């Protein structure tokens, strides 16, 4: 009798995943500039979606205000490089630290709210962030500012090298976020989080501190979201309150990705991001019709497959590429 936490499918997926990762790492030598930009953006959305999925799908923290941290991180990149003279890479890490710090008082405030009120609360906080940054004239006030050429040039010599670096940073953060989410969910804390999702009464009676577990998830997700925000605006080179705290760009699309891919699974946001970018690239010429198509797709998936596309796959093939659970292997055990 033994207990296993892996499967044949997961081992094959890990090998294939490592192969894909190598191909992606050497992309600057085989992909065009436009493709690399697109992939860089895709990785950043993948990272945002994985974090939102951890919060909403596992911790039950349905936030519609994560743009608060995307924008905050972006502004911290500008502030730390322009005023403190930090190199951009250090400023990205700094944005993460500051994002964690600012999320603590925010959490103390909004964790008093439950369910729908929590969601509304997060949106209100994001608006407060937007209005506050619009007041800071040193950062361009309501009209925003650009990253000085000197700072951009300090990253690497030449445009190609800079674009390759920013591509690798995006790939790196997406990889790290997914790896961190996976490791966290397999840990003792992750087991506690899954228990909370299923039954809060039983979880608290079995020694799990619900508030504290959710708090850790919220602060960690916020810090990483701020780092992603810093990267997003390092690619854009320009920031304004409306772009930085856009609910459409940084929350609505992210929710779309997670919902169609499959909420509450690590695989879901990956599938969702691929589908979102496929739709966007094929339908972008249609203008507003593109957004209507996204809406119809989201509604159809919610009605036909509430657990998303990965939910369908998992139900049919019992497949898990990122196994989180435990399986008892024994001739005494049924149900395999």
């Amino acid at each position, binding site marked *: *009798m033994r*207990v296993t936490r892996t499967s044949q499918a997961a081992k094959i997926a890990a090998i294939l995943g490592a192969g894909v990762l190598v191909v992606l790492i050497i992309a600057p030598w085989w992909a065009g500039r436009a493709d690399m930009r697109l992939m860089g953006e895709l990785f950043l959305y993948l990272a945002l979606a994985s974090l939102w999925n951890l919060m909403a799908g596992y911790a039950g923290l349905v936030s519609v205000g994560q743009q608060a941290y995307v924008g905050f991180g972006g502004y911290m990149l500008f502030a730390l490089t322009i005023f403190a003279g930090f190199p951009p890479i250090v400023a990205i890490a700094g944005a993460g630290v500051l994002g964690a710090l600012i999320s603590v008082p925010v959490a103390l405030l909004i964790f008093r709210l439950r369910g729908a009120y929590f969601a509304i609360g997060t949106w209100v906080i994001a608006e407060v962030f937007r209005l506050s940054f619009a007041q800071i004239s040193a950062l361009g006030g309501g009209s925003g500012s650009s990253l000085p050429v000197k700072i951009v040039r300090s990253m690497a010599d030449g445009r190609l090298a800079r674009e390759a670096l920013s591509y690798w940073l995006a790939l790196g953060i997406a990889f790290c976020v997914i790896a961190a989410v996976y490791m966290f969910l397999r840990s*003792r804390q992750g*087991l*506690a989080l*899954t*228990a909370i*999702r*299923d*039954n809060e*009464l*039983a*979880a*608290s*009676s*079995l*020694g*799990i*501190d*619900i508030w504290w577990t959710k708090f850790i998830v919220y602060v960690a997700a916020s810090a990483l979201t701020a780092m992603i925000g810093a990267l997003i605006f390092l690619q854009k080179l320009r920031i304004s309150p409306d772009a930085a705290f856009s609910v459409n760009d940084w929350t609505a699309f992210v929710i779309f990705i997670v919902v169609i891919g499959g909420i509450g699974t690590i695989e879901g946001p990956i599938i969702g991001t691929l589908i979102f970018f496929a739709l966007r690239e094929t339908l972008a010429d249609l203008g507003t019709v593109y957004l209507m198509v996204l809406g119809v797709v989201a509604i159809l998936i919610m009605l036909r497959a509430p657990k998303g596309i990965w939910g369908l796959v998992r139900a049919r093939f019992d497949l898990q590429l990122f196994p989180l*659970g*435990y*399986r*008892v292997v*024994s001739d*005494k*055990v*049924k*149900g*395999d």
Partner: protein
Amino acid sequence: MSPILQLRGLSKSFGAVVVADKLSYEMQSGEALGIIGPNGAGKTTMFNLITGTLTPDKGDVIFLSKDVTKYSAARRCRLGMARSFQVPQPFSGMTVFENAMIAATQAAGLSGWVAEDSCLKVLEQTNLLDKANVLAGSLNLLDRKRLELTRALCAKPKLLMLDEIAGGLTESECISLVHTIKDIHAQGVSVIWIEHVVHALMAVVDRLIVIDFGKKIAEGPPKEIMASSEVQEIYLGIEVDG
């Protein structure tokens, strides 16, 4: 021996309804205590007050010589109390084994293969091993009750609190349940057990407490208590003349 649990004047009411009325008693370490009383008497409420799911309006809960009245349910559990719920509360989306692992890792603080081993042993003891990989949400009521006992045991408690786990069992299952609880008790675990299946209770406990309308009505050796006229009248609903 020092008392493991003391209740001092625990009171709780919801509006005008009094669900716990100045409950006071002591339980010695290693004791097995039975709780009986009619439906709605406040037995489960008393459990909720002891474990911290509910906060009392008045009174204190002393556990292992510590005043735990202000502690959260989670903290009290980590100190060493584990309960089963009368209405089963499984983690429906997780397998039976994972349910057990929650208790072993979070409540008992075990990790790695030690936790896994401990869960497998308990599952064997509670006859759930063959369903270890089944989702808890797809179990029938009887197996859900077994899962409640499993989780409570995997928490490795000093005080095991059981809330009506014998109801609905067949005679042979009931006998094996009594054996399991006697085993746990023999290992030095204190047991407090709410049960309507009186013969199962009588086989295990050293002392009985009768509760009605949130009040302690009687307390003493099981046989004496069951024979007393108040219990016959209040609990069994038999009219006693004179």
